[in-house]
């Protein structure tokens, strides 16, 4: 029991246990720093345990393999960054602060379960644990209109997308009589008792549910509103951990259920990827709200990753994971800057908030510039190598149309990233210079931002160590 279940699931148990410990600590005595410290400790323990936990199948629901552990580590690290950002952010705002960390831990657990699940039951439960945490996190500042509106929007849309997902799972189960990813591939390959009129709609509905969570193009309408309305650290969480966990699941589902053998699925993936790349990059062009720009850009980035997923094989899966790591780093960094700059009464989401930032707070502006250039895919940043590996993997299999569209839309995307960068370096007018905006960045947030910037440049110059880890991770997957 202990060796079979407890030890392999240690990274998950530590996060779940920490949420209970934080809740009990809050019940005894409310203290923001204690709740924050416990959260950070639990996430750090989970992160470390992911390195030495034995690889094992837990029952039929969870597969703790190198691949799952890699994403658990990534999610735990990102959750630590979000917790640090939230600590400074919440300290300046009204209301209770401690519940935030409980909800953060619960939602993080959901994302980790997604990364390990190899069965529809754990897929759905993980998704719901993640979503339930997110509803309350998005509307956490419950006396402000925008977060509450965003929370309700997310609740309605996520609940209906869960219905799509469940119905799809039911159809696949009705056809094949199994909910395990790998059994689906076996049964579909054997071809007996197969009704494509049940299986394909089922897969389509499942992809709808997953596509909603990832904000891929026809299902992306919620993204800008929720990004804008949610508190900045929560937006960082939605953008990275929620989408990362879901993409980890999609890659596992795609490879273990051998969805690449269904040609209609591949056609649908191409359409979704192309639509996401165009929609994200074009919609961002005329936006003046930085959070909404980042929302649209995240739609486009998910489209890029989907191209790599569709290419498939070792190279494709490697490119997916590398791009997701890059996306985590640069998105967390960008939202870290938004969080740090946000004044007490609102989030700093207008492009005017960033005008002339370089002349007021040069280090912050340089960090933001690095993140934006990486999102645009400029060399010497990790974002460049992310796109490079996708294009290399695509070229190897001859997916030229998708690559061409990726290159075209990335070029369009350059425009709106550079628009923000230009604003950062504009000479400020006299009225702005007179405004008393000089605030100090909290040391912890500054540390997170500098670490993210250094990793961004380090991996942008020297990506091979990460590549080796990724190779080992996908070895167990394929």
């Amino acid at each position, binding site marked *: 029991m202990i060796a079979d279940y407890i030890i392999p699931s240690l990274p998950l148990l530590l996060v779940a246990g920490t949420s209970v410990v934080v809740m009990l600590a809050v019940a005894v005595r409310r203290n923001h720093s204690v709740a924050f410290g416990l959260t950070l400790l639990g996430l750090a323990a989970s992160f470390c345990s992911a390195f030495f936990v034995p690889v094992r199948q837990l029952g039929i629901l969870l597969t703790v393999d190198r691949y799952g552990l890699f994403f658990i580590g990534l999610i735990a690290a990102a959750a630590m960054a979000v917790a640090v950002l939230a600590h400074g952010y919440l300290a300046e705002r009204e209301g209770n602060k401690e519940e935030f960390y409980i909800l953060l831990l619960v939602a993080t657990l959901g994302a980790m379960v997604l990364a390990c699940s190899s069965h529809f*039951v754990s897929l759905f439960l993980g998704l719901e644990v993640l979503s339930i945490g997110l509803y309350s996190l998005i509307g956490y500042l419950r006396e402000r209109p925008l977060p509450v509106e965003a929370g309700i929007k997310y609740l309605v849309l996520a609940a209906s997308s869960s219905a799509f997902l469940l119905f799809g799972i039911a159809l696949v189960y009705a056809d094949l009589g199994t909910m395990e990813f790998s059994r689906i591939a076996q049964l579909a390959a054997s071809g007996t008792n197969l009704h494509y009129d049940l299986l394909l709609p089922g897969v389509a509905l499942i992809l709808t549910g997953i596509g909603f969570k990832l904000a891929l193009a026809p299902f992306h309408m919620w993204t800008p509103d929720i990004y804008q309305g949610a508190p900045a650290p929560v937006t960082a969480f939605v953008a990275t951990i929620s989408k990362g966990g879901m993409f980890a699941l999609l890659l596992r589902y795609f490879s273990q259920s051998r969805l690449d053998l269904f040609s209609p699925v591949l056609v649908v993936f191409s359409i979704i990827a192309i639509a996401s790349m165009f929609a994200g990059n074009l919609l961002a062009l005329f936006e003046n709200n930085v959070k909404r720009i980042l929302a649209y850009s995240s739609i486009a980035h998910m489209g890029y990753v989907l191209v790599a997923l569709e290419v498939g094989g070792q190279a494709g899966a490697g490119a997916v994971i590398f791009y997701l790591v890059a996306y985590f780093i640069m998105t967390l960094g960008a939202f870290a800057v938004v969080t740090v700059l946000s004044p007490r009464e609102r989030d700093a989401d207008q492009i005017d908030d960033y005008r002339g930032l370089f002349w007021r707070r040069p280090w912050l502006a340089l960090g933001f510039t690095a993140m934006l250039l990486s999102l645009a895919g400029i060399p010497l940043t990790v974002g460049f190598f992310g796109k490079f590996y996708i294009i290399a993997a695509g070229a190897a299999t001859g997916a030229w149309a998708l690559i061409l569209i990726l290159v075209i839309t990335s070029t369009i995307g350059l425009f709106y990233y550079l628009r923000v960068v230009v604003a950062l370096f504009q000479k400020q007018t006299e009225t702005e210079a007179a405004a008393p905006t000089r605030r100090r960045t909290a040391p912890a947030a500054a540390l997170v931002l500098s670490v993210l910037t250094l990793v961004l440049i380090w991996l942008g110059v020297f990506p091979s160590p990460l590549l080796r880890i990724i190779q080992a991770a996908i070895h167990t997957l394929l």
Partner: protein
Amino acid sequence: MSGPMEAAFYVAAAVAVVSTLLAISRLVAVHALLYLIVSFLSVAVVFYTMGAPLVATLEVIIYAGAILVLFLFVVMMLNLGTRDRDQERQWFSGAAWLGPAILSAILLAEVIYLIVSGATTGGLSATVGPKEVALALYGPYMIGVELASMLLLGAVVGATHLSKQEARP
């Protein structure tokens, strides 16, 4: 599925659709809840006709029973006050109770007919009892049960935070 069971399935499904539509289109919350109860009851009958009596029972006990009675209590408690009695008289005056009553009567007649006629449950090959469900839940799906408990923890903490009344100065 064949014969009376199939007919019963379609009748119960129709009642489910009608009562759900009425539930979301009512203007008074209590009236909507009455239709929602009927909706859950009809889904229970649907499960029964599909050959899943255990799920049907759970649907009645948990949804139509526990959860909705809680809803009703809360909705009624929120309206406590001076105009409380008038309001309740208004709620249950006239034809407000008639619709849910008719729909429930249809379901009741259906269940009685099915029991009396001894129609066999179709659809699923074997009837699943409580023991099999319990063994599955605490066997291969144990992690799922644990995850559901974490889901409830998150929901409770979130609901407490979002609905808490701060002491106003």
